[in-house]
C-alpha cells in the first residue's frame, strides 16, 4: 500500500511539474472564453461585418416593385428594362444579384456574379414569400395593419413539477450543460487514458520496468500509475473550474456594474437615431435575455451535477485507462497500438455520437436508459441525462454497474499487463493477449 502511494506520488508530481500541464491549465479556459467571446462578437456584429450586397430586381409581374425591405446585408434596386438588356447591364455593373420575377410570379430566378451565400438566399426567399402572402391576405380582405400588429413573439415558460413544487425546467440550459459535461468526459477519457498508455510504453521501452517490478508487483505499478494520472486530471479540472468561476465572477460584476448606465446610453442613442419603439424593445429584450441566462443557470443544481461529473469522470477514466494500460504493455512502441485502439475508441465515439444526437433529445427513452447504465457507455450518456433529471434508482444502478465494470476490466487488464510488460519483440495479437490472460501467476 505504501509502495502504491509512492508510485502515485511520482506519477502525479512528474506530470504536474511539467510545463505542458501548467500551460494547458491556463490556456484551455482562455481558449474557451476567447472562442465564446469571438462567437458572441460575431453574432452581434454579423450584420456590420459583411459587405452590403446590391440586388437588382427585374419584376415583370409588377407585384413586387418597391416592396422589398433593405436589410443591413442587402440593398434592393428596381429596373424596368427587359430581362435580356438588364442581364447585359448586370454583367457590367457592380450589382451582386439579379432577381428576375416572371409575369406569373412563379419560377423566380436569382442570377449572381459569384456563388450566393445561404443567408442572402433565405432573406430574399422569405421576403418574397412575405410579399406574396400579404398580397393574398389583402386579396382576401384582411388589413395589413392588423397583420403588422400580429407579430408579437410568444415564449414558452417551462416549469417542472417536483416535490418542492414548481421549478424552472430550463431545458435549453440543461441541453448545454449536458452537452458540455459529456463532451468534457469524452475528451478527458481520451487525453488522460492515452497518458496512462504512454507512461506504460515509456517504462517498457526504457527498460526501467524490470527494476521497478523487482521491487513492486506489476498490479501495484499499474494501479499507481492510473490513479496518479487520474489525480492529474482532477487537479486540472479543479483548476479550470476555479479559473472559470474567477473569470465569470469578475466578468459578472463588471457586466452588472455597467448594466444600468448601459440602459441610459442605449436609450440616448436610440432617441438620437430616432429609432422606432421596436428597436428599443429589442434592446430591452436583450438585457432581459442575459438575466434569463443567470436564472436558468440557477435552475441547475451545481453541486449535484459537479459531483456526478467527478464520479463519472473518475470511474470512466479508471475503466478505460486500465484498458489503455493493458494495450501499452502489449506493444513495444506507440505506433504499434493502432490495432488495439479500436475496442477503446469505438464505444467512446459511438456513445458520444448517439448521446449528442439522440439521448440529449430523448433523455428518458429506453435507449438512453440502457446507454446510461452500461459501464462502457454510461460515463458519457449519463452526463447528458443528468441535467434533465434522472431517477435516483437509475443513477445508483448506473454507478454500481460502473464500479463493478471497472473492477472486472481492471482485473482482466492487470493479467495482460503483468505478462506484457516483460515481453519484447513480439508482435502481439488478440489471441496472444488471451493467452497472456490465461497464464497463471
Amino acid at each position: 500500500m505504501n509502495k502504491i502511494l509512492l508510485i502515485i506520488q511520482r506519477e502525479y508530481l512528474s506530470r504536474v511539474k511539467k510545463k505542458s500541464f501548467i500551460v494547458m491549465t491556463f490556456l484551455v479556459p482562455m481558449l474557451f472564453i476567447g472562442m465564446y467571446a469571438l462567437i458572441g462578437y460575431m453574432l452581434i456584429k454579423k450584420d456590420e461585418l459583411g459587405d452590403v450586397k446590391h440586388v437588382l430586381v427585374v419584376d415583370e409581374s409588377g407585384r413586387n416593385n418597391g416592396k422589398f425591405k433593405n436589410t443591413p446585408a442587402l440593398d434592393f434596386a428596381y429596373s424596368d428594362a427587359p430581362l435580356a438588356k438588364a442581364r447585359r447591364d448586370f454583367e457590367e455593373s457592380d450589382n451582386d444579384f439579379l432577381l428576375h420575377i416572371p409575369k406569373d410570379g412563379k419560377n423566380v430566378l436569382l442570377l449572381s456574379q459569384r456563388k450566393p451565400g445561404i443567408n442572402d438566399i433565405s432573406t430574399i426567399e422569405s421576403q418574397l414569400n412575405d410579399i406574396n402572402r400579404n398580397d393574398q391576405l389583402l386579396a382576401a380582405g384582411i388589413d395589413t395593419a392588423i397583420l403588422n400588429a400580429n407579430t408579437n413573439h410568444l415564449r414558452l415558460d417551462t416549469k417542472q413539477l417536483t416535490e418542492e413544487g414548481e421549478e424552472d425546467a430550463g431545458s435549453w440550459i440543461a441541453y448545454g450543460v449536458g452537452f458540455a459535461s459529456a463532451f468534457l468526459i469524452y475528451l478527458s477519457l481520451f487525453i488522460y487514458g492515452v497518458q496512462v498508455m504512454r507512461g506504460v510504453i515509456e517504462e517498457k521501452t526504457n527498460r526501467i520496468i524490470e527494476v521497478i517490478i523487482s521491487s513492486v508487483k506489476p498490479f501495484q505499478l499499474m494501479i499507481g500509475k492510473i490513479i496518479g494520472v487520474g489525480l492529474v486530471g482532477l487537479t486540472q479540472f479543479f483548476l479550470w473550474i476555479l479559473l472559470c468561476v474567477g473569470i465569470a465572477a469578475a466578468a459578472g460584476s463588471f457586466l452588472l456594474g455597467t448594466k444600468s448606465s448601459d440602459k441610459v446610453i442605449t436609450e440616448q442613442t436610440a432617441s438620437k437615431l430616432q429609432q422606432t419603439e421596436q428597436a428599443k424593445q429589442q434592446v430591452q429584450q436583450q438585457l432581459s435575455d442575459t438575466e434569463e441566462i443567470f436564472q436558468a443557470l440557477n435552475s441547475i443544481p451545481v453541486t449535484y451535477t459537479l459531483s456526478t461529473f467527478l464520479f463519472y469522470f473518475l470511474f470512466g477514466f479508471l475503466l478505460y485507462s486500465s484498458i489503455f494500460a493493458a494495450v501499452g504493455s502489449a506493444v513495444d512502441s506507440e505506433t504499434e497500438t493502432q490495432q488495439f485502439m479500436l475496442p477503446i475508441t469505438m464505444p467512446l465515439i459511438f456513445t458520444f455520437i448517439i448521446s449528442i444526437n439522440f439521448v440529449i433529445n430523448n433523455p428518458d427513452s429506453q435507449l438512453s436508459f440502457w446507454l446510461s447504465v452500461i459501464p462502457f457507455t454510461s460515463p458519457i450518456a449519463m452526463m447528458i441525462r443528468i441535467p434533465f433529471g434522472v431517477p435516483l434508482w437509475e443513477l445508483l444502478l448506473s454507478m454500481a454497474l460502473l464500479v463493478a465494470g471497472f473492477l472486472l476490466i481492471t482485473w482482466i487488464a492487470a493479467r495482460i499487463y503483468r505478462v506484457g510488460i516483460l515481453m519484447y519483440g513480439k508482435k502481439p495479437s488478440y489471441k496472444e493477449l488471451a493467452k497472456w490472460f490465461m497464464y497463471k501467476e
Partner: protein
Amino acid sequence: MLSVKNIVKQYANHRALNNVSFDIQTGSIFGLLGPNGAGKTSLIRIINQITAPDEGIVLFDGEKLQPSHISSIGYLPEERGLYKKMEIGEQVIYLSRLKGLSQPEALNRAKYWFEKLDMQTWWKKKVEDLSKGMQQKVQFIASVIHEPRLIILDEPFSGFDPVNADVIKNEILELNKRGATIIFSTHRMESVEQLCDSIVLLHRSKKILEGKVKDIRNSFRDDTYKIQCRPNDEIPQENGIFEILKRSVHDDYTELTLKLEAGKTTNEALAFLLPKVEILSLTEVIPTIHEIFVQKVTGTD
C-alpha cells in the same frame, strides 16, 4: 544463502528452465553462466520474484522466497533503464524507497554513494543528459543502495569504459567483503575467473556444470604441458612417454605442447628431453573457464 531446487519454467512452446538446482554459499561470488537463451534471465526473474516457477522452490536463508525478501535483494538487470526526464538524485531516492527505505535514509545513502563514485554534481541532472557510462553508475547505485544481502548483477560491466569498469569491480568486491552475496550473470569469462568463487553453467535450459572455479578447472586438467626450450637434437614423435600435440618455432626458442601418456610424470618427460634440448620453462596447461565453457557448450550441441 540461496538454494534453487528443481526449478522448471515452461513458456507456451519452450521450456526455459528444466529441473535446475544449485546452492549459493553466504558471502560468495557466484557466477551464473550460459550462452544467450540458456535460461539465465528466466532464473534471475524467478529469484527476483518477477515471475514464479512452474515447479520447484527457491529458498532464501532456508525460507521459501516471499515478498518480504525483496528488500534484501538488489538487482541490476542487463537491460538498463531509468526515467529519462527525471532528475537522477530524485530517481535514486524513488527507487530505493520502493525497496523500503525511508525518505531521510534514502537521501543520506544516495548522497553517500554519489560522493563515493564522484558524481555529486550530477544530482540535478536528468538521465537524458548523461552519457551511457554515467547512467550505468546511477543504475548500479540504485541496485545496491538498500544494502541488500544478495546482489544480482546481470552483465554489470557492459557499457563501462575500462577505468569505470575497474571502479565498479572494486565496489562489488568491497560489498562482498562487507558480507553481501553476489550473483554474477555473464558470458564474459575473464571476469568470471577473476571474481567468482563458484559457478553454474546453464545450457539449453539445463544445468550442465557446477562447482568451485578451481575445482572445475582442475577437473578439466588432462596432463598437458607447455615446454619452452632450445632443441639441440631431433625429438622422436613415438617415445612412450608423451605425445607432441603442437610445436611452434620462435626466433630464439621452440614451444612444445605435450600430453603425457597414462601413468607418466613430468619428471620422466624431462629426463627424456634433457639430453636433447635446453629447457627454458615448463608450465601445466589448465583449461580456462572460457575454454571449458566453449567445450561444454559445443560438446552438448
